[in-house]
């Protein structure tokens, strides 16, 4: 599963993309796995209310299932337009 980071999430994590080989059941489980990696992930995921998530390029909730997911992305609230 590919995990992508955008905007300041990418900057805090220090990279744009991770490959995750575990099989977390939900987005929240994936976040726990990532937080366990290194302090910079803890910094990126410190305040979940400031984060948004997309599963396979569709906006999702933190409790969304990752059963069939190939790509998960984390980013701050969007500021287009």
């Amino acid at each position: 599963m590919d995990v992508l980071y955008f905007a300041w999430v990418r900057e805090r994590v220090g990279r744009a993309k991770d490959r995750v080989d575990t099989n977390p059941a939900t987005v929240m489980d994936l976040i726990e796995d990532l937080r366990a990696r290194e302090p910079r992930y803890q910094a990126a995921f410190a305040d979940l209310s400031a984060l948004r998530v997309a599963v396979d390029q569709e906006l999702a909730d933190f409790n969304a299932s990752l059963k069939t997911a190939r790509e998960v992305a984390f980013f701050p609230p969007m500021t287009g337009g």
Partner: protein
Amino acid sequence: MDIRVQEAAFDFGSEANAFASRQAGMGAVVTFTGIVRDLGTASLSAMEIEHYPGMTEKALEKIAKDASSRWNLGDILIIHRYGRLHPQEMIMMVATASRHRADAFQAAEFLMDFLKSRAPFWKKELTRDGADWVEAKDEDEAALTRW
């Protein structure tokens, strides 16, 4: 439906003319253009726009389809840039066409409201004091509730 996500600049006037001239039977065309504006005190040197290739196009298509199903529209155009832009440059534009003006106006406002908070773009402002990610505004999220 014409949706473009691109790094290159676009010519607002030419796009607006081309869009309007291909609207047979439509009496109303509305356009919106977003422009990089200077920030007053902390002079803005540039704005960097990041996006999520793949998801961006899907999100814009969904927003445009939602608008098409809610209003009686002839056509929709969305152009949104990414990369580094400077003050006075155009960031994006939408255009809508309809028989009567209410549909084109409502659809353009709807497109802008959703494009603002539901399409994966992020803006970073570069000033002489440093670089800051633009924060989403509560009022932009609140604007979605009217639809």
